[in-house]
């Protein structure tokens, strides 16, 4: 059945008879009565008249019918709505301002709600996603952080049998290459245990998911594609199923494409999903899966923790290196990592938009009150001819709701784009799978919001306007000289509006202030015009890997590429390194230092670079020297430390000559090679300035710089300082690398990514969240300011227009113009000033609360700047319309009397 037919059927069941049907029946009764009357001897004309007098008009009969079957309220509301729409059309300026005021508020609130819905309430497409847990443990010595427990296949099986567990998914994220094309392409793959299809319960867009049968006979070479990869690599080809994809020189059959909402895993979204059974086992660490555990329904986390702990203790006994000495289990839902930070961000933003909405509602109230003064006459007539107060209140409320619904329609349309703004500004703060769509809960939310707003801003004016005595109103239009009563309502509304606007402006000011502060913070290095170029060695190709597997060969390979890039015109300095990208650089390592053996395991960042790194990044040398070329090749016996390290660990004497050793510098997997004596004692030969290594917002932690040849992983980073924009050199750098090894591609992601150091800063979560707050609160407060000004402006303009006569009389009697101006703008000015004072008080009260949420207190400077800006704008918004009051010509004004 079509929708139209359904509506028709519903309509028929509400009112089964049509107007013409009812009228025809009544007319036949009239005729029968009329004929009776004629038979009794009345002339025809007289009989028709009497029939109508006795029985009534056929045209009015439908109304009787609808009232009798209980549709009166419905009809009256329909009438009110039509009347409301007509009133909106009659006052286009009023309507536009009122509807836009609300559209801003409702749009922003709906956008924020849909974000919250997508990110916090319903972020994952997986079946039973609220029961899926990460297997975290907490190191009791460092209880702030948490670690992942990795499992091997047999342990997996044990875990799956535990009572509270419904099912367990194992996954392993690996970097892969698509081979067989002109240039290999780096992709991210995830090996999944073959129960993935049922575990996720997500219907694939095309083909099928991984199934247990894919594990048979040692695993089938099949692959499921991520939506974005499918779009990027295959242009969204719908006939992709059954084709093959060459990954790491092996051929895989494409069996499925996941829908867009599926973006496992949220920390590193994979391009391809492969069955775990085909994972090449090269060493022990490859064997370990990360587990996702889906609990049975109604199992508490505490129960699950205590049930799983013995199993994990068993694992810890077999693999003591995977867990610290003292730990306990702490399962966490998969949303948890996002809830922590993003939840706070969204709550704050929601508070901001709710303020905006309240300001919008206050604005509409003010407009309705102001307009209401011109409608008193009309309402008095309605009331005089018998409309009850409730009827008038209802009509005014319906008009308000018509406005708010119009605002909601516009707002929901706008929210679709508004909701994307935070995702664009801070993509890493949100799960990759949350994408914004307008759905039923969100629509219900905004419709509810619209009705609520309509009630909220409509009620005060409705109650106010419906209370009057018609006798006083009716005799004529109100005579000018009478001051309007009950102005305090406007004053309250304006004061509240101004106070809330100041609150938003102060918040925005603080956010912008601290963002600017963040940007001005000294970095300790110069990111301008420096680009990191990363390369990933082809470890999966036995021939190529064999050529660079030894330490010397790899060093020569890196040096060769470095020299080629250095010869590109425009490249001024180039350095090599690993894990050396600021503002997050190095790996945490324990070290020993001579003469302080009693100190408990001191920790420092170890950053692997070559001797040119400090020049390339312009990190100043404070003491001693940097190692030379030969020392760089050897890798052992020397170290350079940063200022923070020297202050913390070497303060007792001069830094030089002190010895330190780092016992952890051993190959961690089959790809890493080390220098001959990487763990031997090293002499500190220099101290360099502090360059940010723990994010731009955190103090620099102690760091040890070592020659990169000390420990070489399967990738390398080059730091290229160029003249002008480094990205414009990308093509020539690519060509330089290709001249060394034709199939060596530049990596785009991961540790060995390619980006400018300024981009690296922009990816800092602190930078992103502060930028997000600055921009969004900036926008919110600009909107709020605009709303408040429009409200004040229209209020003054209305009241001036109403009091034309009064001003004319005042001027005629010789009142100074300045005084008349003051009279016209007085109420708005005084209430706005009160609002600013209240706002300042509110800000100092909320300052402490906000300091907790935003990690920065209100800056007094930005608060007063905001207050001054607000005061100035309010003054203008008052005086601009008020100047019409002194432009009144006394004779002109009195003519209306």
């Amino acid at each position: 059945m079509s929708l139209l037919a359904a509506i028709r059927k519903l309509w028929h069941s509400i009112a089964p008879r049509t107007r013409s049907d009812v009228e025809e029946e009544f007319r036949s009764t009239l005729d029968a009565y009329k004929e009776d009357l004629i038979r009794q001897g009345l002339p025809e004309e007289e009989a028709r008249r009497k029939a109508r007098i006795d029985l009534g008009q056929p045209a009015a009969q439908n109304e009787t019918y609808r009232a009798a079957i209980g549709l009166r309220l419905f009809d009256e509301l329909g009438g009110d709505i039509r009347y409301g729409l007509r009133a909106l059309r009659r006052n286009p300026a009023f309507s536009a301002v009122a509807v836009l005021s609300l559209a801003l508020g409702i749009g922003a609130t709906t956008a924020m709600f849909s974000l919250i819905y997508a990110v916090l309430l319903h972020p994952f497409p997986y079946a039973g996603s609220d029961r899926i847990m990460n297997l975290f443990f907490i190191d009791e010595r460092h209880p702030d952080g948490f670690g992942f427990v990795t499992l091997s296949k047999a342990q997996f099986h044990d875990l799956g049998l535990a009572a509270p567990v419904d099912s367990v998914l194992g996954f392993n994220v690996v970097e892969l290459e698509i081979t067989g094309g002109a240039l290999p392409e780096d992709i991210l793959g995830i090996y999944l245990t073959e129960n993935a299809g049922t575990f996720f319960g997500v219907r694939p867009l095309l083909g099928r998911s991984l199934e247990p049968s894919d594990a048979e006979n040692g695993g089938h070479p099949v692959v499921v594609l991520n939506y974005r990869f499918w779009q990027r690599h295959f242009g969204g080809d719908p006939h992709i199923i059954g084709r093959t994809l060459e990954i790491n020189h092996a051929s895989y059959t494409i069996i499925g494409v996941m829908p867009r909402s599926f973006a496992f895993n949220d920390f590193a979204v994979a391009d391809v999903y492969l069955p775990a059974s085909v994972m090449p086992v090269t060493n022990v660490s490859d064997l370990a899966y990360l587990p996702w555990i889906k609990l049975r329904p109604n199992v508490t986390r505490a129960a699950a923790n205590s049930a799983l702990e013995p199993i994990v203790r068993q694992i810890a006994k077999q693999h003591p290196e995977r867990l610290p000495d003292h730990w306990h289990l702490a399962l966490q839902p998969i949303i948890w990592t996002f809830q922590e930070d993003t939840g706070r961000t969204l709550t704050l933003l929601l508070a901001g938009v709710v303020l905006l909405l309240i300001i919008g509602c206050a604005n509409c109230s003010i407009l309705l009150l102001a307009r209401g003064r011109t409608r008193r006459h009309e309402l008095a007539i309605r009331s005089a001819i018998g409309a009850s107060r409730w009827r008038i209140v209802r009509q005014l409320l319906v008009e308000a709701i018509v406005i708010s619904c119009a605002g909601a329609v516009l707002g929901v349309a706008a929210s679709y784009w508004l909701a994307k703004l935070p995702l664009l500004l801070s993509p890493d703060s949100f799960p990759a799978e949350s994408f914004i769509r307008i759905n039923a809960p969100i629509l219900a939310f905004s419709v509810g919001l619209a009705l609520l707003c309509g009630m909220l801003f409509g009620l005060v004016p409705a109650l106010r306007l419906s209370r009057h005595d018609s006798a006083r109103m009716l005799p004529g239009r109100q005579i000018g000289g009478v001051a309007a009563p009950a102005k305090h309502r406007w004053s309250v509304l304006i004061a509240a509006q101004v106070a809330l606007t100041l609150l938003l402006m102060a918040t925005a000011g603080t956010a912008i202030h601290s963002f600017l502060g963040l940007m001005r913070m000294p970095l300790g290095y110069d990111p301008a015009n420096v680009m990191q170029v990363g390369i990933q060695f082809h470890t999966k190709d036995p021939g190529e890997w064999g050529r660079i597997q030894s330490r010397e060969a790899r060093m020569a390979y890196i040096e060769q590429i470095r020299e080629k890039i250095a010869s590109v015109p425009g490249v001024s300095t180039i350095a090599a390194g690993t894990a050396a990208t600021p503002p997050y650089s190095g790996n945490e390592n324990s070290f020993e230092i001579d003469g302080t053996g009693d100190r408990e395991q001191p920790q420092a960042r170890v950053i692997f670079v070559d001797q040119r790194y400090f020049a390339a990044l312009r990190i100043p040398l404070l003491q001693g020297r940097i190692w030379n070329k030969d020392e760089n090749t050897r890798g052992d016996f020397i170290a350079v430390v940063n200022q923070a390290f020297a202050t913390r660990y070497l303060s007792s004497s001069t830094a030089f000559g002190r010895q330190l050793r780092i016992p952890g510098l051993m190959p961690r997997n089959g790809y890493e090679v080390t220098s001959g004596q990487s763990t031997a004692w090293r002499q500190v030969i220099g101290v360099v300035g502090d360059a940010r290594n723990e994010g731009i917002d955190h103090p620099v932690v102690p760091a040890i710089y070592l020659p990169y040849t000390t420990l070489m992983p399967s990738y390398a980073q080059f730091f290229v300082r160029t003249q002008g924009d480094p990205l414009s050199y990308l093509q020539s750098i690519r060509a330089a690398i290709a001249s060394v090894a034709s199939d060596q591609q530049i990596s785009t992601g991961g540790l060995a990514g390619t980006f400018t150091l300024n981009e690296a800063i922009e990816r800092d979560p602190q930078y992103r969240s502060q930028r997000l707050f600055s921009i969004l609160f900036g926008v919110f407060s600009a909107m709020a300011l605009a709303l408040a000004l429009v409200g004040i402006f229209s209020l003054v303009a209305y009241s001036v227009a109403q009091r034309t006569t009064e001003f004319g009389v005042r001027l005629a009697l010789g009142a100074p113009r300045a005084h008349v101006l003051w009279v016209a703008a007085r109420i708005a000015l005084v209430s706005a000033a009160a609002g600013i004072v209240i706002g300042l008080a509110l800000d100092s009260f909320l300052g402490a609360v906000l300091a907790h949420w935003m990690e920065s207190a209100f800056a007094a400077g930005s608060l007063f700047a905001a207050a001054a800006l607000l005061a100035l704008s309010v003054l203008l918004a008052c005086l601009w319309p008020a100047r019409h009051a002194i432009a009144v010509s006394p004779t002109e004004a009195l003519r209306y009397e």
Partner: protein
Amino acid sequence: MTKPVELPQGTLEMLILKAVSLGPLHGYGILLRIQQISGERLEILQGSFYAAIYRLERRGWIKGEWGESENNRRARFYSLTAAGTRQLKAETAKWTDMAAVVAGILAKKAGEI
């Protein structure tokens, strides 16, 4: 001619059901029949009459169908439905009971109370 009687609240609907129970009637016919049965003593407010018919039809106690009237005019004829029959029976019983009780009370003499 006897004095006209004013109809108590809510009884018009019962009278319409009664009128229709004797055979299908159009609106004007119902009006005439009620006046005829009551011996022209009932004054029916014209405005409330059709409203009552609409309400009864809405509740499903009477059913309207278009047909030909005695003088070949199209008219809407109402007949009692099964639910209407039950309703009329119940209303009649209730009314008779109440009337008997009220009449009984009013018939008491001063000494009997």
